[in-house]
């Protein structure tokens, strides 16, 4: 089960796509593991960029699984997975 969020987040990176943490709703989530990624075709004919999704385990109060999305240079929290 997953919950669709699609809210902007701030991401902390050490290298190009190595995420160490992200801030969502003013709370910091420390990434413990990034375990999957994929791209989804966009409506490029409308000028949309191709989104990159990264699935991570991150820790706030407890550890959860989150789907982050990078679109152009902006980051979003796409989903929260149970």
């Amino acid at each position: 089960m997953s919950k669709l969020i699609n809210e902007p987040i701030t991401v902390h990176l050490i290298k190009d796509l190595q995420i160490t943490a992200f801030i969502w709703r003013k709370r910091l989530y420390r990434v413990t593991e990034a375990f999957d990624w994929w791209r989804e075709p966009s409506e490029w004919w409308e000028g949309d960029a191709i989104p990159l999704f990264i699935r991570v385990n991150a820790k706030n109060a407890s550890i959860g699984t989150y789907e982050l999305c990078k679109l152009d240079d902006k980051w979003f929290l796409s989903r929260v997975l149970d």
Partner: protein
Amino acid sequence: MSFVHLHVHSQYSFLDGASSIDKLLQKAVVLDMPALAITDHNRLTGAIRFYVKAKALGIKPIVGAEIDLEGGYHLTLLCKNVEGYSNLCQLLTKAHLSNRNSKPRATKEMLQEHNKGLIALSGCAKGEIPTLISKGDTKKAHIVASEYKDIFGSDFHIELIRYRSREWNPILHTLSSFASEEGIPTVATNNVHYAEYEDYKVKELLNAIQQNTPVYNLRGNRTADQYLKPSKEMERLFRDFKHALRATEEIAAKCNLELELNKPRFPKFQLPTNETDFSYLSKLANSGLFKKYNPVSTQITKRLGYELETIKKLGFCSYFLAVWDIVRWAQKRNIRCQARGSAVDSLVVYALDISNVDPIEYNLLFERFMHPLRKEPPDIDIDIDRRRRDEVRDYIYEKYGSENVACVGTINTYMARGAIRDAGKALGLPQAVIEESVKGIHWLSASKLMDAADKLPELKNNPIYRQSELKQFFALCASIDRFPKHMSVHLGGLLIGDGKLSKLVPLEWPSGGDIISQYDKDDIERLGIVKLDLLSLPTLTVIEDTIKSIKRGHGIDVDIDRIPRDDPEVFAMLRDGKTLGTFQLESPAQREMAGRLLPDSFEDIIASISLVRPGPLKSNMDKLYLPRRHGTRSVAYLHPSLKNALEETLGVILYQEQVLKVAHDLAGMTYAQADGFRRAMTHDRTKEEMENMRGSFIEGALKNKVSKSIASEVFEQLSAFAAYGFCKAHAAAYANVSYQTLWLKYHYPAEFFAAVLSNQPMGYYPPRVLVAEAKRSGVTILPPDINRSFDFFSVENGAIRISLAQIKGMSEGALISIQATKKNGDFTSLRDFMSRTEVSRPITENLIRVGAFDRFGSRNHLLMQFSDIFTNKQRSMKGAKQLLEHDEPEANSPFEQPNAEARIAERDLLSIDLSSHPLDHYINDRDITQMKDLPSLKIGAKIKLVGGVIRYQTPPTRNGNRVVYIIMEDGTGIADVTVFNNVQEACGEVLFREPWLVVTGKIQKRGPKATSVIAESVRGFGQHFHK
């Protein structure tokens, strides 16, 4: 472990693969891949060039294809060896040829028959087993798996494809379990369709074009994951399927195709008993020699012997015999044909009657055609009377068997216009935007579109190229530049195999025409298959028609191959530039050259044909040659030993044959080495290569006691001209036909123009320009007449009668009906015509409008009558027959002069200005210069022209600046207008767009009789007259 991509589509998966072979291979090099496969849909079109390029880059090429099976299933096949390659060729051929107007489909029986040497992978999601597993039909999947195992044994693998997505491939594990149940090994692939993931857009665009649907309506699951992934990424993706990863390497190790390239392959010629191909060829050539020369000198016999020995040594005796046999067969049936190209350099070709240009008389050099050091097979190109070319083709099919003969395929690719049209439609752009975007695009590659839109005056003022919302669209158009769309028949190339052709070349049906090879001519050459170019040449049809017409009208048999080659009147006409309709000499550039060169011999025509080429003009050969030809500059040779080679062209290197002679005479090279030297000079070469060539040239020259400085200077001249010189043999063959057409035009203009007009389309000019030229040559043009006209332009008491076939909308059925009915007597009235023929209403109406029934009354009256008769005829067909039979014919009215409406109808329906020219009213304006008067004006004279555009030309120039040439006509003559950059800037909006132009400018004369106009302004006709 090194992962190998075994399922890869290139751009030769027409409209599905989104990367070129070069791009895929470049990425494979960057990713350090040891091997790479090519598996395009149902074809091997890219396979040979992939094979050659991959090997050159140190990558092992694995050749294969993804084929369509019955039911629309896919199957990936890879060649283990030559046997596998041959089987794949045959399989693809069968799949294509057994499905003429539909997608190729292979059957299991075909797979069974051609299984050897092939490895099969179960294919993408459209594979038969993956499809059945997806549907949950495991039972059927097991049956099918058994079938594949029966066919391919242990060489059948289940393909595992995993794209990264939110929901990975759900059936992957099911497929893997199924495979282990069946004992079938699995293999990991990525079904690659592009090198980089960003190119998925290009793939989707191509798919939308292919499916003729807007891109947002594309069917199927979308992915951006079909790119050439690095090994590491594939290993991570398939970390749970390690055996499938290992299998890629194992399969790659099994694929060891070694194609034998550049080995000549040609069928054995059927010989008379006790003859070898060499003995028979020698016999024929020697006997031909005695028919051509009397006496036969030792020099000639020696040369023939040398040529024959070379042909034997290179293994081409059968090829020469085959060409001789084909030409002889055609000649026996009075089909005009003759060799063109460098083959004309050969005395054997002349002795066998394949060419009618004497290589001894014209100082032609055999080694330009073939020699022992040349790798490529010789190419004898034959021009054939267009109307009868198919008869010759049929003979070849019959003689060698239809399985051994095919046409050469040619790959049609995207240029700017096509890319804009197709991509625009796929992206759902409004038609008006598409039309505006292509407007003004002349001949342009899609990748240069935006650059051209910044520079070219006719594009840069068009705001469409600057609209930000279209930026991505034009970038997409550029991304499909030169992408293949489909294959079609190469103009003349025929392949004759040394056995069943499909064992070496996959064949298919083109959209129209005969069976073609999936390879283009370059790859055919790489495979060593000798191709025969049988080119339709309409000029030969014109010559034949003219000769027949002369016989009919004058009772004279013209032996066109024996006409005097020094007819002064013919040369006078050529010098005056009155060459419209003639072969090779009618273009503006050739007319201008005639006015500068002032030719008075056949050799001058050869020189003229050779000079008017982009290369010679770009390198200013004309400026070196013409003053010497006119004696205004002295002829000098850098060294006495150059005289032998260059005397015929007054010290200027004009012909490729001369490059060989100079290298031979000065630097002591053999002619074979000299040809290698010439070829090397014509290709891009590194500084180092150039220095090596210079070194060996100078070294050779020094041995011949030529000073270093002279040798160096000659080398510089050769390097400047070698790439631009023209093959004299080819020019001589063309000059022969050119002269024949000039001669016919001068002596029999009516018969000649009637033939040219009957054989349209051909040449440079449309019928209305040719008709105007015929009138200027003193020929009367008669309107179409239902009783007098035929289905061709005929000659009637020295005048040309317009053909009924010229009328817009005329059908072959209507022509047959009219001609057949006339055999039973002329038509006596419109009513009679309509009752006796089955010609449609629109055609009959057009016949009336262009005056074909003028003998029966005025056009207006006939049109009214036509409507009544037609209604009655329809009624009569419903039972009221008496209305037609008993209706009295109308009395003949006197011929009524065509009015303005009739004149418009003539232009629209005949494409000919018969009664008058649309500009007649304007060119009498005292401001306007009539084009017929241009030659009499002085240099620099200011003029204003009004005329219709015949065509635009933008030939390459030495400094790279574009010059636009406009050929115009005003009914009195034609004008050649030059528009330089500065003027183009000001008239960008009308160039390439407006059909009627007003040009102001001044007279230029580049030679005594070479008149043209330098434009100072160019405006649209309406724009001018409305101001």
